[in-house]
């Protein structure tokens, strides 16, 4: 397994801009933080877009939990092969150096901590890194978890990619999650449109970046969370 160093990113001092990041800008920020040679699992949906900003020179290898390392972009035309899909069941392509393995081996790879980074979406994340992304706990809803719980706890680092607030304006960074948990203390970073946040078990949230949000506004919207500026 590779010995990932994210130190370069970690020591970045606090910085801010006046406007929220677009989804593409956010994807690029995450991609830039992934160390060369890393093995990465990108969750279904928005996290998938991170791959658009991983240059071949970085030699990042993508893992899909349905049994493959080294898949390439979505397949088109003749490339489409029903036997070659990602975890989102989308036809993908093969890159040189790929390998196939069965489901137990694939999740052993994940659970055993061999992936460097996993990027996931979230409904809520707590200040200590608890993740809620599989169920909104609505009564009567049919539950479905898939690989969410395995992904949450498997990688050396689990990053969440999300908007900092819901479309209704509700906060998603919580002192404690109110939705059913996916994993406990598993998220190390939140990459959101308005803030890049580093989490640890202490519950003190390190703010690396703010976009279209001041530190004071961030604190005001999350009165029960303690924030510190990075490099301060």
């Amino acid at each position: 397994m590779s010995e990932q160093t994210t130190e370069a990113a970690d020591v970045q001092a606090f910085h801010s801009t006046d406007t929220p990041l677009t989804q593409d800008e956010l994807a690029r920020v995450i991609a830039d933080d992934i160390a060369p040679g890393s093995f990465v699992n990108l969750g279904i949906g928005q996290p998938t877009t991170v791959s658009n900003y991983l240059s071949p020179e970085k030699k990042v290898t993508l893992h899909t939990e349905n049994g493959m390392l080294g898949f390439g972009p979505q397949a088109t035309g003749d490339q489409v092969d029903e036997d070659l899909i990602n975890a989102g069941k989308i036809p993908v392509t093969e890159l040189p150096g790929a390998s196939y393995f069965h489901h137990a081996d694939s999740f052993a790879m994940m659970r055993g901590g061999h992936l460097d980074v996993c990027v996931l979406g979230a409904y809520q994340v707590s200040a200590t890194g608890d993740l809620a992304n599989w169920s909104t706990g609505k009564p009567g809803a049919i539950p479905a978890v898939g690989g969410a719980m395995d992904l949450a706890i498997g990688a050396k680092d689990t990053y969440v990619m999300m908007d900092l607030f819901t479309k209704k304006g509700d906060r998603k960074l919580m002192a404690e999650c109110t939705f059913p948990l996916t994993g406990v203390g598993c998220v190390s970073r939140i990459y959101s449109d308005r803030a890049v946040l580093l989490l640890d078990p202490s519950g003190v949230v390190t703010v690396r970046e703010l976009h279209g949000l001041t530190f004071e506004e961030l604190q005001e919207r999350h009165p029960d969370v303690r924030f510190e500026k990075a490099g301060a």
Partner: protein
Amino acid sequence: MLEFVDTAAEAVSRITDGATVLIGGFGNAGQPMELIDALMDSGATGLTVVNNNAGQADAGLALLIKERRVAKIICSFPRQSDSWHFDEAYRAGEIELELVPQGNLAERMRAAGAGIGGFFSPTGYGTQLAEGKEVREIDGKHYVLESPIRGDFALIKAYAADPYGNLVYRKTARNFGPVMATAAAHTIVQVDEVLDEPLNPEHVVTPGIYVDTVVGIPTGSGVKEREEREALTAGRPKPCMATKTAAELAAQK
């Protein structure tokens, strides 16, 4: 004892009411469609089914559920946009659901096949899905005790079988197949190719010891495999190879 049969109907004929059936596949890849259809036609009922999903649209497993032939399903992801037959059966209280995180599902079947009585998994600790299960802190990390999942039968799709029952798979269609083959008392396999010669012993993924019944059924997998072999023979790259990276494709837009 290994047997090669001619039809899917023959292949599933031993499956009786009340059996636990492990069914391979993730999405369409590796799904033994023809075996599931034959199970439907066989009339077997009161089944416990283990599959990653709970059926989609109006085909295969979804039809078994529609006809109320599945008493219980053990799966990781039952709710999908087109899982209406499962949704209806579940809401009517006519199917039991055991929801299992995908990796625990695979590992629990692996444990059954490997003679492991139970194992401590970190997955699901502190969540609803661990409620009622034994938990333990080991070296500062929390784990949940998980138990083996055994099948009376496994229905899987491999790519090819040799005369000894050795199997190889194709790309991500491998998924649950090799694990389920080890976890069932009787493993039934549909393959695109029944080979006359033995497979290379270094390339065998599922040794014949895990295989009981084989039926050859050509599918789209065989078509793609032949395209791939033709390309390689002609010195062209495999059709499924990426021609551009994601970054290049994104830049094009």
